[in-house]
C-alpha cells in the first residue's frame, strides 16, 4: 500500500515537472540592450522580477530573445550569449506559449538595433498579437532610466485561458516589490472593454445591493436613477464617446418568481465627454427604467413558493450600457506622459523616458472599442397574496371532498343495510298512507309493520296477509303492487327501486311502531 502511495506521489511530481512552469521571463538580448547589461540594469531588474514571481509560483522559466528565443537556466547564461541584431517580440512570445507558459513577462527596450529606428514591422505584429484573442490580459510597466539611455518596458501578458489568479498575484507581487526600487507604474492595457468602467450611484430608490422601497406585483414600476460613470483605469482617459443601451429580454433572471411586463431603459445624455482615469464623470446621467407592471410567474412552483416560502424577493435587473470609444479617444493622462513618455529616441536617451509611450492606447485598441458597463439593480418586490388564498381554498376543497367521500361512503353503507327498495302505501280508494322501508328491511305503513323486504322479496309480517297477488311471498319488481291485509284493513303497497342515495323514508316511517 505504501509503495502504491509513494508511486502515486512520484507520478504527480513527475507530471508536474513534465507540465513545466506556468510563468516565464523573456529577456531581450538584442544589441540595443548592451548598455543595460553593462550597467547591471538587466540583472537588477531580472532579479527583482524573478524574486517576485518565484514568491508566487516557485518555478519560473527564463528565456533570452533577439531574432529567436531560447530557454536558459538564468541570467548568467544569457550574459554568455552573443547580442542579436533585432528584437522579434512576437516570435519570442510564440515560443514561450508553445512551451506551455501561461503568464509571460518580457523585459525589452522595444527598439531594434539599427540605430535610430524602431522595429516597426515586428512591433506592429507584436501589438496585433496582443490585441488578438490569443492574449487575454496585457499590463505594461514603463521603466524610467537615468539620463543617458532610453527607458525600458516590461510587459506582463496572460495568454488565452491562462491562470488569471496567478497573473494577478504575480502582478501585485512585482508591483509591490518594484515600488521604491524602480521608477515604474502599472499600465493595464487589456482588456480595455471589460471591467474598466463602472457605475457610481448618485440618487436612486434602488442600487446594486438593496432597494429602499418595496414594489408590489401588479403595479407599474418606473424609476429615474441618477448615476455617474466611474473609470477603473489607472492612467487612461476616455473622451467624446457615445453611449448605447444594451437591449435585453424583460426578465429578472431565471430564479426570480416575478417578471417585468417590459424593459424600457434609456439614458440621458448619450455622450461621455470626459472620463479621467480613476475619476467619475462630472456629468450626472439619468437612467429611465420603465418595467411596466411586475407579474408573478403563473407556474405551480412559483405559486407555491410565493405562498409558502417567501413573501418578497430582491429581484435583480442588469443595467447594461456600451460606451463606443474611438481609438483616438483613449488617451494616457498628462501626468503619466510627463513622467514616462519621450516623443523621440533622442529625447528618450536624454531623459531616460520610454520612447512613444503615448502610442500605446492606439496600438492596443481597435478602431472603436465597445466598453461594456454593467451594473445590477435590486428591486425588492412583494408577492401578491392570492397564491396563499388559492392554496388555502384548494386545501379546503380537498378537505371538503374527503369529507364528502366519507359521508357518502357512510350513507351508502347505511342504504345497503336497508336494501334498495322504497314503498308507497295507499288505501284501496287511493288515499296515500305514506310508508317506507326501514334500515332493517321492515316495511312500515303508518305505525304498522306490514312485512319486510328480504333482498328482492316481500314477506308479510305476523298478523298480515298478502291478498293480491295470492302468494305467500312476492318477488318484487319496479312498480310492483301488493295488496296486504293488516289490522283488518287493506293496504296497497307500491314498491319502487331507489333511484338515488338521497331517497329517505316518509315521516310515517319514523313514527315508532304501534304496540300490537
Amino acid at each position, binding site marked *: 500500500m505504501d509503495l502504491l502511495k509513494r508511486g502515486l506521489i512520484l507520478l504527480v511530481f513527475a507530471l508536474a515537472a513534465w507540465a513545466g512552469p506556468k510563468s516565464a521571463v523573456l529577456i531581450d538580448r538584442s544589441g540595443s540592450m548592451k548598455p543595460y547589461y553593462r550597467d547591471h540594469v538587466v540583472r537588477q531588474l531580472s532579479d527583482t522580477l524573478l524574486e517576485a514571481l518565484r514568491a508566487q509560483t516557485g518555478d519560473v522559466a527564463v528565456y533570452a530573445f533577439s531574432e529567436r528565443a531560447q530557454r536558459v537556466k538564468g541570467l548568467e547564461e544569457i550574459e554568455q550569449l552573443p547580442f542579436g541584431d533585432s528584437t522579434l517580440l512576437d516570435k519570442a512570445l510564440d515560443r514561450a506559449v508553445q512551451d506551455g507558459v501561461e503568464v509571460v513577462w518580457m523585459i525589452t527596450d522595444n527598439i531594434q538595433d539599427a540605430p535610430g529606428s524602431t522595429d516597426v514591422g515586428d512591433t506592429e505584429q507584436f501589438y496585433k498579437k496582443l490585441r488578438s484573442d490569443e492574449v487575454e490580459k496585457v499590463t505594461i510597466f514603463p521603466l524610467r532610466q537615468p539620463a543617458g539611455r532610453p527607458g525600458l518596458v516590461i510587459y506582463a501578458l496572460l495568454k488565452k485561458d491562462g491562470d488569471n489568479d496567478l497573473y494577478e498575484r504575480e502582478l501585485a507581487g512585482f508591483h509591490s516589490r518594484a515600488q521604491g526600487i524602480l521608477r515604474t507604474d502599472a499600465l493595464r492595457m487589456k482588456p480595455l472593454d471589460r471591467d474598466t468602467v463602472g457605475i457610481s450611484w448618485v440618487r436612486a430608490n434602488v442600487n446594486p445591493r438593496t432597494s429602499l422601497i418595496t414594489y408590489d406585483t401588479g403595479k407599474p414600476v418606473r424609476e429615474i436613477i441618477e448615476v455617474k460613470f466611474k473609470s477603473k483605469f489607472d492612467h487612461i482617459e476616455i473622451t467624446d464617446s457615445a453611449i448605447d443601451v444594451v437591449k435585453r429580454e424583460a426578465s429578472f433572471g431565471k430564479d426570480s418568481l416575478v417578471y417585468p411586463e417590459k424593459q424600457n431603459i434609456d439614458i440621458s445624455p448619450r455622450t461621455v465627454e470626459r472620463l479621467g482615469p480613476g475619476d467619475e464623470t462630472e456629468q450626472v446621467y439619468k437612467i429611465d427604467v420603465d418595467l411596466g407592471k411586475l407579474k408573478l410567474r403563473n407556474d405551480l412552483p412559483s405559486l407555491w*413558493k410565493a405562498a409558502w416560502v417567501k*413573501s*418578497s424577493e430582491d429581484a435583480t435587473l442588469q443595467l447594461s450600457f456600451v460606451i463606443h470609444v474611438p481609438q483616438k479617444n483613449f488617451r494616457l493622462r498628462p501626468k503619466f506622459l510627463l513622467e514616462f513618455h519621450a516623443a523621440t529616441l533622442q529625447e528618450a536617451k536624454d531623459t531616460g523616458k520610454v520612447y512613444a509611450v503615448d502610442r500605446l492606447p492606439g496600438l492596443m485598441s481597435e478602431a472603436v472599442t465597445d466598453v461594456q458597463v454593467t451594473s445590477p439593480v435590486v428591486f425588492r418586490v412583494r408577492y401578491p*397574496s392570492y*397564491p*396563499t388564498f388559492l392554496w*388555502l381554498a384548494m386545501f379546503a376543497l380537498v378537505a371538503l371532498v374527503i369529507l364528502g367521500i366519507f359521508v357518502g361512503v357512510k350513507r351508502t353503507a347505511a342504504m345497503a343495510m336497508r336494501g334498495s327498495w322504497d314503498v308507497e302505501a295507499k288505501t284501496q280508494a287511493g288515499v296515500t298512507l305514506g310508508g317506507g322501508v326501514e334500515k332493517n328491511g321492515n316495511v312500515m305503513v303508518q305505525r304498522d309493520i306490514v312485512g319486510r323486504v328480504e333482498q328482492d322479496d316481500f314477506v308479510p309480517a305476523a298478523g298480515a296477509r298478502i291478498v293480491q297477488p295470492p302468494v305467500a311471498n312476492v318477488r318484487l319488481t319496479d312498480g310492483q303492487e301488493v295488496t296486504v291485509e293488516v289490522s283488518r284493513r287493506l293496504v296497497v303497497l307500491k314498491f319502487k327501486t331507489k333511484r338515488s342515495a338521497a331517497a329517505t323514508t316518509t315521516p310515517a316511517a319514523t313514527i315508532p311502531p304501534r304496540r300490537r
Partner: protein
Amino acid sequence: MPAQQGVKDVKPLVVAVFTVFCLANIFLLVISLLIAFKNSKFQPIPEDVGLGIRMLIFLVGAGLSWALGRWLYMRMVEGQIKVPESATAALVLLFYLLLTFAGLAFLGGFSWIWQTVFLILLVLMTLLGLSRVIGMRSAIFVLVLCLLAGVVLFFMLS
C-alpha cells in the same frame, strides 16, 4: 358545599391562564412597538416568510384557541360556574389566545395599531365578562401587573 368547593378549584386555573395569555399579548405588543418606534430588528418569525406560513400559524392558533376555550368552558361548568358566565369567560380567554397567535403571525411595523385596539377591547371584555368568574380585584391586579411588565420590558429592550 361540594359545589362551592368546585368553584374555588377552577378559579386559580382561569386566573393563571388569563395571566399567561395577557402577558403573551403584552410581550408581542412591546415587540411590535419596538419594531415600529425603536427600529428593532427582532422578529419572532423572519420578515419575508411566506404569507401562507403566517396564515397557517394563525389558523392553527385559531384551532388551538377554540379547543382550549372549550376545555376551559367545560372545566368552569364542571366547577359549578353558571353556563353564561363560563361561556363569556371562555370566549374572552379564547380571544386572548387568538390575538396572541394573530400577533405572532402578522407581527410587523404597523401591527402595534391593531394589536393595541384589540387588546383594549379585550381588557374591556375582561372587566365586563371575565371578572365575573375571577373577580374584579383579580382581573385588575393581573392587568396592572401585565402592563407594568410590558413597560419594564419596553425600556429594557429599547
